[in-house]
């Protein structure tokens, strides 16, 4: 399956793109995508823990199941206000 991955702020700077389509094995969860990204991008490999994630614009846990076409983002520490 394919998911659409969005990058923001420091993550966007680190990977050099705003978004991309990534292929994952069927049945993958949020944590699996994080492992996949950590293999592609050294910036993510340095993290001690998975950052907060959103699936289809809602916060989602590491165990959340992913489906074809989902929009996924890992979020750097938010700093609004």
């Amino acid at each position: 399956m394919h998911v659409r991955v969005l990058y923001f702020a420091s993550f966007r700077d680190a990977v050099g793109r705003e978004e991309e389509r990534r292929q994952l094995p069927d049945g993958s969860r949020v944590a699996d995508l994080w492992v996949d990204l950590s293999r592609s991008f050294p910036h993510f490999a340095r993290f001690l823990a998975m950052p907060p994630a959103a699936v289809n614009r809602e916060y989602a846990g590491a165990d959340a199941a992913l489906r074809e076409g989902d929009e996924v983002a890992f979020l750097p520490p938010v700093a609004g206000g």
Partner: protein
Amino acid sequence: MFLTSDPIDLTAFLGDARPSDGAVCVFVGVVRNESEGRESVAMEYQAYGAMAESEMARIAKALGEKWPQARVRIRHRVGRLEIGEASVAIVATAPHRDEAFAACRAAIDRIKKTVPIWKKEIRADGTSEWVDPTARDAGHGARNK
């Protein structure tokens, strides 16, 4: 719409108290000229637009449930802001001040915690850095630098 790339119009924002409202509590966050001891000249705000909208809608709804008499308006700016410009404005109106103050305070606290918005401080020498409010918490993920 909670996000805007235009300057926040506080006057228009203040004008919509209801006849039953006796209190209008306003919080305005503005860009300041230093961050952790270093001078900055501007702040660049970036949002995960669609999710930021739904998170702020969720917050406004939750506040309405906690303080049923209060009504909360929120605007958050994105893009490059100069020193002194408003980055966020919250107006909480209610029949009495206790609810207005409480809802206003809760709104800004929740916005800072969960709404996917980021800001990059721009310094006088041209360098810049994303603000990380968690940077001082030991062991909370990796640092950017």
